[in-house]
């Protein structure tokens, strides 16, 4: 089955693909996924109950969240096709708690062709990022607003650490020491990466990526909900600003598109007709769009059922929850396809046009005047506003808790929205120019400025210009990043200096640090996805090191960064000799045993003419195959950082990771004998490993399996 984005991110459950190479530009896809437009799902209690009865899923939101990600991939549906192609006796560990194999009976039903005419092509291999639009689902707005943290923290490193630990534990149980791990390790890092840079629940005042764009309001037609219910819901939605306590001042429902989802039972033809007439009526009278979904159908009972896998990206809390209490939902294949069709229609017919309209509107009202002749001169602007005595738009507004933010109507925030939405639809050029223009205005607002600069750099790396050149990196991107970091630092410093209470100061710095951490992780990974690794990796390395020295992360998270550093060095190969590296074996030095005699003895039966007599010296120095690449790689450094990572994994008692790290280093260190000396760390780590894992290739057994007589087992 074709290797897909979802396969890669959930590689643990698709270990049959473990030997593929790292997908190109995966970082960009993850970033696109991370900033994808957010759709909040609100549904009525009746609908939720009905769903609960039929599908054993708590609410519509819980149902729809499985369908986030790249909709055109249809990865929930593809799972079925893939399973039918696989052999029943699966080579990987059968006791896989999250996605178990089913033996399908009945006919194979191929998924319906996706829209846009790309039937089975995969988002992973799309060159043009605009072809695959990502979306994310999130809870109803009031829920999000209610749990908004008061200190603007972007992500909680503590929860990240917990998630990582559990994920690693899962890996340790489901693999053994000889599982091909290179891709898996990359996948783990990218999972970590994706979590660190996105969270669907945190609403940030400084950026608008997590602010919902579409509000999907669902009603249950089969339960008799009517036009009036819908109208009430719409009114409620429009008034959310005022009715909800603590609604953030930087958000507004005007900028959200309400769409109604009419769920009906397909067994009853009249319900379908009701839906259709309702659709027309809603459009005419309430000016709101709606979609219809046959959520219940007799056919679904007899249809092939598919186990849904967890979405690639959802909030950290949800992912931890599902990791701890695995739960798999089953849906019929035709329902899945229907849902995908609805989502297709939502995205391409409703959401994207809405976004583009808004973008156009903002552009005309905000950007055009700025491009006028007089805008650049600030004093002139002040002069004009003084005359007008108009409202000062660039003052921060205080919200109910006393924090100061830009209000949703302020030009600055709208411009930020413009830029962010351009990023979401992959229009990086506009995004870049908007960010740049905005950054000039935000000089006096460091927290906003820092975020703006960071995303300015990101837009460049994602493809604002068609190629990223070395010069561009040096002159544009890097200075932007440095400025952003400097701004973050200044914020932190002023914060610490202002408050006298040290503990409180540290705590208030943390949210800022989380932005900084996110910034560094994001940018370093994007640097690594550039093709000229010789020039780009040093920057990635610098930023990763910044994370290690400045940002607060849990221990396992830090080790991920160490391992990424090692990967950076491994990637650092001068492009001129890259072809050489691919030819020769992975070892840098060829070891030949040197004999005391200068003559290499050969058996007398060999034909003398065919023997190449290598001189003793030649054998020691290598005969020229490797000399070209000398100095143009950093493989030894890469192995060294792996070693440090292994040491730290041992401290955290993650023995599977230690085993894999040691394997990585084998080729480099065994050649030099450093790996075997007992007083040195490699040997010590090996001993530790043997003590803790024992034989049988390091298989960990689950807790409830009893020890069997023929295995040597050690509890982890």
């Amino acid at each position, binding site marked *: 089955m074709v290797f897909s984005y979802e396969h890669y991110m959930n590689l643990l459950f698709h270990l049959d693909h473990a030997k593929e190479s790292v997908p190109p530009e995966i970082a960009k896809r993850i970033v696109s996924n991370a900033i994808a437009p957010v759709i909040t799902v609100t549904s009525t209690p009746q609908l939720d109950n009905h769903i609960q009865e039929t599908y054993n899923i708590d609410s519509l939101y819980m149902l729809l969240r499985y369908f986030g990600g790249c909709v055109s991939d249809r990865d929930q549906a593809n799972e079925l096709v893939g399973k039918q192609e696989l052999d029943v006796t699966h080579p990987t560990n059968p006791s896989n708690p999250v996605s178990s194999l089913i033996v399908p009976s009945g006919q194979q039903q191929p998924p319906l062709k996706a829209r846009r005419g790309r039937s089975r092509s995969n988002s992973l291999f799309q060159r043009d990022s605009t072809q695959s639009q990502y979306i994310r689902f999130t809870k109803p707005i009031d829920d999000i607003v209610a749990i908004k943290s008061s200190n603007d923290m972007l992500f909680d490193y503590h929860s990240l650490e917990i998630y990582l630990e559990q994920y690693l534990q899962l890996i340790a149980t489901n693999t053994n020491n000889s599982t091909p791990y290179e891709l898996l390790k990359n996948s783990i890092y990218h999972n970590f990466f994706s979590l660190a840079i996105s969270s669907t629940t945190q609403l940030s005042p400084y950026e608008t990526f997590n602010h919902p764009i579409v509000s999907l309001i669902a009603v249950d037609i089969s339960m008799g909900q009517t036009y009036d219910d819908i109208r009430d819901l719409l009114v409620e939605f429009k008034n959310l600003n005022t009715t909800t306590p603590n609604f953030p001042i930087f958000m507004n429902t005007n900028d959200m598109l309400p769409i109604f989802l009419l769920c009906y039972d397909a067994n009853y033809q009249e319900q379908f007709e009701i839906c259709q007439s309702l659709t027309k009526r809603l459009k005419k009278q309430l000016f709101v769009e709606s979609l219809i979904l046959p959520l219940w159908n007799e056919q679904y009972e007899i249809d092939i059922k598919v186990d849904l896998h967890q979405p690639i990206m959802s909030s950290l809390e949800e992912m931890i929850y599902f990791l701890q209490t695995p739960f798999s939902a089953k849906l019929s294949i035709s329902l899945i396809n229907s849902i995908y069709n609805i989502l297709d229609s939502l995205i391409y017919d409703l959401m994207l046009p809405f976004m583009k309209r808004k973008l156009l509107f903002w552009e005309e009202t905000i950007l055009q005047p700025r491009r006028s002749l007089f805008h650049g001169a600030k004093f002139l602007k002040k002069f004009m506003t003084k005359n007008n005595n108009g409202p000062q738009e660039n003052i921060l507004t205080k919200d109910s808790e006393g924090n100061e933010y830009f209000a949703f109507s302020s030009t600055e925030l709208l411009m930020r929205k413009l830029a962010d939405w351009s990023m979401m639809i992959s229009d990086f050029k506009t995004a870049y120019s908007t960010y740049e223009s905005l950054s000039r205005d935000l000089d006096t607002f460091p927290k906003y400025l820092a975020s703006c600069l960071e995303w300015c750099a990101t837009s460049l790396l994602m493809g604002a210009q068609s190629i990223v050149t070395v010069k561009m990196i040096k002159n544009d991107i890097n200075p932007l990043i440095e400025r952003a970091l400097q701004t973050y630092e200044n914020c932190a410093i002023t914060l610490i200096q202002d408050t006298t209470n040290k503990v409180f100061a540290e705590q208030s710095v943390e949210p800022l640090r989380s932005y900084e951490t996110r910034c560094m992780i994001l940018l370093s990974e994007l640097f690594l996805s550039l093709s000229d690794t010789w020039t780009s990796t040093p920057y990635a390395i610098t930023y990763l090191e910044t994370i290690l020295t400045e940002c607060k992360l849990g221990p396992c998270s830090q080790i991920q960064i160490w391992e990424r550093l090692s990967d950076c060095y491994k990637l650092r190969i001068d492009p*001129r*000799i890259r072809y050489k590296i691919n030819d020769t074996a992975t070892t840098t030095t060829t070891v030949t045993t040197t004999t*005391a005699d*200068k*003559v290499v003895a050969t058996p*007398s039966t060999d034909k*003398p*003419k065919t*023997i190449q*007599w290598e*001189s*003793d*010296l*030649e054998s020691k*120095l*290598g*005969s*020229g*195959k490797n*000399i*070209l690449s000398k100095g143009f790689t950093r493989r030894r450094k890469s192995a060294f950082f792996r070693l440090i990572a292994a040491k730290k994994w041992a401290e955290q008692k993650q023995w599977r990771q230690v085993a894999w790290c040691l394997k990585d280093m084998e080729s480099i260190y065994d050649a030099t004998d450093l790996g075997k000396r007992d007083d040195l760390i490699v040997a010590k780590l090996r001993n530790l490993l043997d003590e803790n894992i024992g034989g049988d290739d390091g298989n960990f057994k689950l807790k409830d399996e009893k020890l069997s007589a023929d295995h040597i087992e050690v509890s982890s």
Partner: protein
Amino acid sequence: MTQKTLITPAENSTTITQMDTSRSSRLYTESLMFKKDNVSLSAMTFLYQEMISYLHQSSTTMAEFEKKLSNYGESIGLRLLELLNFRASLSPKSFIDSSSSATTTTATTTTTSNITTTSATTGTGTAKIISENRTRSKSTTSKLANDTRTSSNSALRDHNTHHHHHHHTLEREKNLDVSLCKYITKMRRRDLKILDILQFIHGTLWSYLFNHVSDDLVKSSERANEYMIIDNSPVLTQFIPNNNNASLSCNYFVCGIIKGFLLSAGFPCSVNPHTMSTDEFDERLVYLIQFDQEVLEREALRA
């Protein structure tokens, strides 16, 4: 031969105990300076011929013979690379200034040589290179090379070493500063380019070995990786009649020296001898040096 160095070749390193200074090696106590010395030509060629016939008997093919002979040369070339570069780093001016203080000590009389005679017990021998007093010596700055560590011609030294060896070694270890580093202001540059190192071979190495610079250094016009060093009358093989292929193979020793020199400096290559007689020089020999392609590529990359 008088031997002070005990060495059992098993370990390939001198194993000395601290206490046993009476038998300690003079490996580190000798200076690396030049000492002119003469060895008889007949002894040298005899030894060379013995070496060749030994190798001839123990090899089954010509290729094997050539390789073995070349191997001997390579170990010399390896050492010469370091030694000659080091000596070239000594700035003559500073040496002359302080030479007055240095010559008072006895330690500066000997130099370590690149080639030593073997002890009688081991069969593998490396020969000495003779320096002849050639009238057409072109080098003025380089001192005549050559000395052996263990067999010396100076009666005085023999006398010292035999009778006062114990006493003197202790003295040497304590008082004498045999280090030449104080005469070095900066080390000679490592040669990174083909042309630089070939110049060094043509000039310094050849003068060291044969007391004159090589007769020509030529770059081949046909192939980019071929260079030639020309010797109008090779010294070591002058008594070997030059009439067949076998006699050509006897020149692999010097090829080995060049090859070892280049290999250890990081220029993998192969060196082969060819005859090219002219009217004036009947025995004219060309050492053809073919560098591996990677060397040229590296030079292009690192330009």
